[in-house]
């Protein structure tokens, strides 16, 4: 009964969202709103993928930008029309790849290639403990970036020059739907036995192992899944920007995604999604007036000039990190908030007892 109600509500919500997005697509394809919707959806997917590792499995990985880069490059390299290759690979006589895959195939491969790389490096690296794992994955991302930028790989990756003219979407609903479907798959995974095993590993590795959970296997599954979806997110990002360059995928990008996860709440999927939209909207749109030195209501505000937006924004992030450590959602999901919680009642009762 309850499930049915929930299903109906979410279906209605989804329909409203789709209609809204279609409206935006038809009437303001190039507005800031459209831009935030697309980028927010992409960041939401990547953040949820990182959350799967950091929040649900307790593996502190900082390699997200590296996997996104692999995905973006796989997609871009494989879907540039043959006729355009000579212009894109201008210093490498058109490159060595002389075929062009359909968009959907490219997108799936954009997930599979980073997944394979995750498998390769996961084998040794996943044995490491918390912050060593973080720094090793960060290092891996930097190494991959250098390899892609290597001159001798130019015919394949176009070296450090940017890739463009690859297959792209027309309707802004596309990245949102892809990202929604991917997030739904991650949610299904989290709610399966795998997800419960991940959480057990997060809470106590040794206890989890004692309960018969294969640590190496489950960590690897989480790592590869996260890489797969980060790769798809990277491909979507490449499409959104209509050009892609390895130099963009720095550790700063990983930090941004990590901050989204923290703002949304470590261990909450809906939190990450909300965090992503908030983060993108604030940094690209709502706070933009702070960069504007124009007077407001006749008063020239002395601090407002280029860069002030990011400064305010980073102060807000520090406040969240220090004082609202649980982020927006903590480890709860949005629908949880409407559920009756017996816990609270219990707590109240126990307080009374103490008193």
């Amino acid at each position, binding site marked *: 009964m309850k499930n049915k109600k929930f299903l109906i509500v979410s279906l209605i919500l989804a329909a409203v969202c789709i209609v809204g997005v279609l409206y935006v697509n038809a009437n303001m394809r190039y507005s800031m709103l459209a831009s935030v919707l697309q980028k927010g959806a992409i960041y939401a997917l990547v953040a949820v993928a990182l959350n799967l590792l950091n929040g649900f499995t307790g593996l502190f990985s900082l390699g997200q930008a590296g996997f996104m880069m692999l995905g973006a490059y796989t997609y871009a390299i494989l879907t540039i029309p043959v006729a355009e290759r000579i212009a894109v690979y201008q210093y490498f006589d058109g490159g060595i790849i002389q075929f062009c895959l359909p968009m959907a195939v490219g997108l799936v491969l954009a997930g599979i290639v980073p997944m394979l790389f995750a498998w390769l490096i996961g084998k*040794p690296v996943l044995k490491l403990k918390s*912050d060593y794992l973080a720094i*090793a994955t960060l290092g891996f991302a*930097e190494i991959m970036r250098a390899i892609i930028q290597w*001159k001798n790989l130019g015919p394949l990756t176009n070296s450090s020059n940017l890739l463009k003219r690859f297959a792209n979407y027309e309707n802004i609903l596309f990245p949102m739907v892809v990202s929604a479907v991917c997030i739904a798959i991650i949610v299904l995974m989290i709610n399966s036995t795998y997800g419960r095993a991940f959480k057990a590993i997060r809470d106590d590795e040794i206890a989890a192992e004692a309960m018969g959970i294969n640590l190496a296997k489950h960590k690897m599954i989480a790592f590869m899944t996260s890489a797969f979806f980060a790769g798809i997110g990277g491909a979507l990002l490449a499409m959104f920007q209509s050009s892609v360059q390895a130099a963009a995928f720095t*550790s700063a990008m990983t*930090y941004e995604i*990590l901050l989204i996860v923290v703002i949304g709440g470590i261990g909450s999927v809906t939190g990450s999604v909300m965090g992503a939209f908030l983060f993108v909207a604030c940094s690209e749109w709502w706070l933009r007036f702070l960069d504007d030195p124009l007077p407001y209501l006749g008063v020239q505000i002395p601090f407002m000039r280029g860069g002030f937006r990011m400064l305010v924004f980073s102060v807000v992030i520090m406040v969240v*990190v*220090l004082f609202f450590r649980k982020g927006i959602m903590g480890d709860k999901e949005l629908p949880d908030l409407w559920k009756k919680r017996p816990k609270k009642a219990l707590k109240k009762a126990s307080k009374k007892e103490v008193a």
Partner: protein
Amino acid sequence: MHEASYYIQLLLSGITVGSLYALIAIGYTMVYGILRLINFAHGDIFMMAGFFMVYLCTGMSPLVALPLVLIMTVILGVLIERAAYKPLRTAPRMSVMISAIGVSYLLQNLATYVTGGLARAYPEIPGLKNTIQLGSVSVNWITIITPVLTILLVVVLVLLINHTKIGMAMRAVSRDFETAQLMGIKINNVISVTFIIGSFLAAVASVLYFTNYGQVSPMIGAMPGLKAFVAAVFGGIGSIPGAVIGAYIIGVCESFIKANETFSVFSNAFTFALLICVLLFRPNGLFGEKMTEKV
């Protein structure tokens, strides 16, 4: 084929860079030794020290500004610890690390805001940039001073840690945080001293580094910071001589890789490849102490 003087030049350049990494790495290794925290903001403290110098020198001579820069950087380091790390002392390690990333983000954005995102020319300290000719190798004074000063500072630091009361307290805290606290060591003081030393050395490194390369920009701290951290891990985290040796190895290797035209792109990647290898084959670094996992 190149002459011998070429290789000497590369070696010298590597030693200079290595010395600077060493000074920064000490800050990382000491903080990590005590708090088990990768202080991602350390590279940005180094960058901020550079900007302190730039802005102070608009009003005074570089020699007067120099001690002020050191003091201001130390204050900045301690402030960051008090504001961003101390409230999280009981929180999970991941939270503290995220806080460190947040501070780094904040400092970079602050510097971008203040400078308008442009690099600033670093004030020249008289005499340091004069070039001298040693045989067929030309070096400037800074190249000579950097390693000498670094070694001197490291020796002083090691003496401080091994032969003073506060040094003993630091060793105790890094061995076992909770027991040290129970034994009556004032943990917060020890941590403050750690940050004072770390920031001081970062400030010294910044003066040498930016005098050598001439300009400061808001994002300049990130890479040297990460490399210094790798040096610290490579040498064995918590070990000061280890960090210094690690830094020199990384500096010299990087210099030779950069000189190779085919592989120069990998100068940064090499550092991380080294890191991953060390973590896999000798997780405690070259000089690190073996630690057992507590359940």
